[in-house]
């Protein structure tokens, strides 16, 4: 039976008729048209589908849209500024060659942002362990770790500048 689900996606309220079994990733990609969130494995292994639900990173291929009814969701499309300026973590991935084919990148970036938000002083080991839910078949991970280190520094600097400005 179709039912209505409503959530805030990247700052906008969206409401769609879905089936009960509609996954969050299907909702985002097919109902809302945000195809930046990828499906790599569909079996909870690869993390290409990671989005933030109320600020926490989750695998949207293992979550029902109905489970997050009423929640606030951020996808990779919601990270950049309104003027198109990349989020510091996105910029760091570009700068440090944290991607090759780019398929895993949306999930990597979303996981990395959640990681930095929860712990601003990450060691290399923290980053490697924090990204255990994300698989990349191209890069060999070293440049991803470098990118996250640089992204974390940039996010912390932004945060410090914001506090200084207040």
């Amino acid at each position, binding site marked *: 039976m179709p039912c209505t689900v409503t959530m805030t996606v990247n700052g906008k309220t969206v409401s769609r008729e879905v*089936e009960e079994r509609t996954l969050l990733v299907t909702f985002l990609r097919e109902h809302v048209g945000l195809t930046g969130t990828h499906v790599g494995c569909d079996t909870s*292994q690869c*993390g290409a589908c990671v989005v933030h639900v109320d600020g926490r990173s989750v695998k949207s291929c*293992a*979550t*029902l849209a*109905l489970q997050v009814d009423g929640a606030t969701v951020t996808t990779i499309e919601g990270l950049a500024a309104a003027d198109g300026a990349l989020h510091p973590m996105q910029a760091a991935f570009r700068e440090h060659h944290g991607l090759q084919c780019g398929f895993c990148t949306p999930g990597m970036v979303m996981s990395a942002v959640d990681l930095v938000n929860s712990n601003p002083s990450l060691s290399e080991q923290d980053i490697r362990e924090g990204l255990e*839910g994300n698989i990349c078949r191209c890069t060999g991970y070293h440049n991803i770790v470098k990118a996250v280190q640089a992204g974390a520094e940039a996010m912390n600097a932004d945060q410090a500048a914001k506090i200084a400005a207040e």
Partner: protein
Amino acid sequence: MYAFSYQRPTSLAEAVAAIQADEAKLLSGGQTLLPTLKQRLAQPSVLVDLSAVPDMKGVAAVDGGLTVGAFTRHAEVAHSDLVKATIPALAHLAEGIGDRQVRNMGTLGGSIANADPSADYPSAVVALKATLTTDRRAIAGDDFFTGMFETALEPGEIVTSVRFATPDKAAYAKFRNPASRYAIVGVFVAKFGAEVRVAVTGAAGSVFRVPAFEAALAANFKAEALNGLSVSADDLNADLHASADYRAHLVTVMAKRAVEAAG
């Protein structure tokens, strides 16, 4: 997935009523159930989502221990200051489950109700003398796990919370599958005064205790007390990750590591 209907009850009474429906199934974090449904290994008529049931979430201090709501996510247990201060081994166990995204969704109740032979929490339930509360009764942790993916729960019975006893010392050591992070062998050691409990997960169809290790550690709570002791490989799991003999070997190694970590 086959089609199903969906309910999100806002009280335990409503959840109990909803789960009586034919082929109804409880949905907690969904990290095990949804992949099962995606593979069409089950065909429930209705999913009863427990996320809005009050009093099933969070950690509270109680006399002699901690009560953890069944809907408490692994990440909340891992990061709880109360758990870290009272039973740090439990926070450490939760932090080692799966990956960050699984921990952000998966729950204590879903993990123990599922009773995967390689799951981490069953070892804590047994080693920490837990008592489970359901919608209708209390169940001793020792009696809860009855076999591979089998528990003492009756059809439609809902776990609401788990009470863990605070040990004097405890630690959990696991040899994990590097891909899934499930336990190939995990050993939870807990010391309560003169009593020691050693609970092993991952090695057999269901969590089990090792009386010979417990007696040796009760006499001398040191890793070397386990020198020369081992469990029989008969009836242990064997799969592409580890043979039964290797698992038997790992039980002693992980038990020693847990004793060392417990200090």
